[in-house]
């Protein structure tokens, strides 16, 4: 009997100690010394209610009035309770899109999971000291991750098709009209009082039309970090939907005869040309637009390593491990901006709408440019490759090829479309540089 009482006593000692320990963590860190001695015994019911008060369920139903968002400001009860539930459901929708529909799963999954974590009450994962917040400050707020992604994309890019038919670069330029057209649209919207976008915000939104994820993130963190979540999600989801958005526009704007145009076979490009090309583009960027050199420089660095042919190990790392690691961090960091208080605002809806307009206008502008070029003498261009001028490498080029094959089984447009496609990447980097330089 005595032994039993002793056992019971030890058990309670242990229990109270653990409980104190938990309390201690919540209390101010400065009072942590000798907490055990000042511990007051409490009835079990009080302990129980205290625990219930700390659950996530309670935090969602009765939001803590003192809870602050990641910027240290007060948030509304809606954003703490129902808003978080809505965002968690949104991330489930993103999971479904990524897994069942195969929409850019490589980025959408990390973004969506980051969003799920960011909307957990109490834990504050996206806050300044949460791990998502740390990731965000580590590489997103200083534009590091998009730059590293650009190096990897550069190492994956083959400029051969562009070099063998240089004039298709104009198509990649025309597609950037989507960016600037939407910029005008966004400022017009705020002019007529629908929304309140500043010029900086409007510029950051319009870059979605460049259909280039890293560039969008780069610009958004520089010009309008408060809109980063919505811009990144819009940009990546529209890139994933290229095969759905583009074909109707392409078919509506071209005639049957134009879609059947066959293009001349590409000439062989020597290794020396491919090796000199990245340096040439970079030199041009240095002379014309130094603001664009972070993006173009990183891109050409990756490409130069690849074409040099002597650093296969570095090239392999850029194309695989480095870009994969960065993609994970980039996705989680962007996901941290899916917190309800930042995403569930009216601006998000306008960003989504403006984004898809930007995308469609860019596609249409590329097609019109191809038609315009066909008015001049020389080799005819199939207008279907014009739509590939929006970056979205290599998805947009594949779409051009697929639509072309629908009308003529033997018409292989893939390689021809890669020219405007990679020119589109350069074009949107230049457009980004112009926008940044305008706000200096």
């Amino acid at each position, binding site marked *: 009997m005595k032994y039993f009482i002793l056992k019971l006593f030890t058990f309670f000692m242990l229990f109270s100690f653990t409980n104190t320990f938990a309390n201690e963590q919540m209390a101010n860190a400065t009072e942590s010394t000798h907490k055990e001695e000042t511990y007051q015994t409490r009835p079990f019911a009080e302990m129980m209610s205290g625990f219930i008060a700390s659950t996530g369920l309670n935090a969602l139903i009765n939001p803590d009035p003192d809870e602050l968002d990641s910027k240290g400001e007060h948030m509304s009860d809606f954003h703490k309770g129902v808003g978080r539930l809505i965002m968690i459901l949104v991330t489930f929708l993103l999971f479904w899109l990524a897994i069942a529909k195969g929409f850019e799963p490589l980025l959408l999954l990390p973004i969506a999971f980051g969003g799920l974590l960011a909307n957990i009450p109490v834990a504050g994962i996206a806050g300044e000291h949460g791990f998502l917040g740390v990731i965000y400050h580590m590489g997103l707020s200083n534009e590091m991750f998009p730059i590293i992604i650009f190096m990897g994309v550069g190492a994956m890019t083959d400029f051969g098709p562009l070099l063998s038919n240089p004039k298709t670069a104009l198509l*990649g330029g025309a597609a950037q009209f989507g960016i600037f057209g939407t910029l005008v649209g966004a400022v017009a919207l705020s002019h007529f009082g629908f929304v309140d976008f500043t*010029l900086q915000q409007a510029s950051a939104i319009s870059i979605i039309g460049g259909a280039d994820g890293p560039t969008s993130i780069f610009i958004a963190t520089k010009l309008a970090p408060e809109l980063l979540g919505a811009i990144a999600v819009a940009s990546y989801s529209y890139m994933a939907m290229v095969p759905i958005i583009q074909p109707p526009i392409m078919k509506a704007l071209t005639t049957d005869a134009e879609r059947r145009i066959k293009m001349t076979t590409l000439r062989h490009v020597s290794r020396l040309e491919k090796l000199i090309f990245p340096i040439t583009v970079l030199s041009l960027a240095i002379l014309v637009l130094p603001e664009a050199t972070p993006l173009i420089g990183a891109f050409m660095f990756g490409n130069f390593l690849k074409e040099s042919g002597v650093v296969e190990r570095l090239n392999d790392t850029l194309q695989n491990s480095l870009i994969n690691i960065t993609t994970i961090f980039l996705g989680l960091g962007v996901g941290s901006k899916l917190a309800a208080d930042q995403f569930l605002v009216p601006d998000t809806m306008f960003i989504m709408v403006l984004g898809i307009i930007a995308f469609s206008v860019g596609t249409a502008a590329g097609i019109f440019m191809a038609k315009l070029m066909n008015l001049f003498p020389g080799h005819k261009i199939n207008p279907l490759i014009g739509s590939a001028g929006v970056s979205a490498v290599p998805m947009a080029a594949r779409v051009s090829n697929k639509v072309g094959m629908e009308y003529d089984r033997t018409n292989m447009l893939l390689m021809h479309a890669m020219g405007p496609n990679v020119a589109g990447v350069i074009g949107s980097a230049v457009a980004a540089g112009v926008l940044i330089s305008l706000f200096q």
Partner: protein
Amino acid sequence: MDTNLVVEGLKFMALGMGTVFAFLIILIAVMYAMSAIIHKFFPEPQPNMETNQAGTQDNKKIIAAISAAITHHRKG
């Protein structure tokens, strides 16, 4: 002030599209010039067809020899 914003947007568009096209047009000109220069002064050596054919012939001989050896082995 409000009217300025749309005009500002149009100015951005003119400058932006102008720069993008100027950049790409210069790039196109440079690409043509570069390929002309490279093809004139540094022509790529033509891949030697003869050695390739000889290689495949060698391969055929080796394949024939191996299969002969296998048949011989199975018979034996």
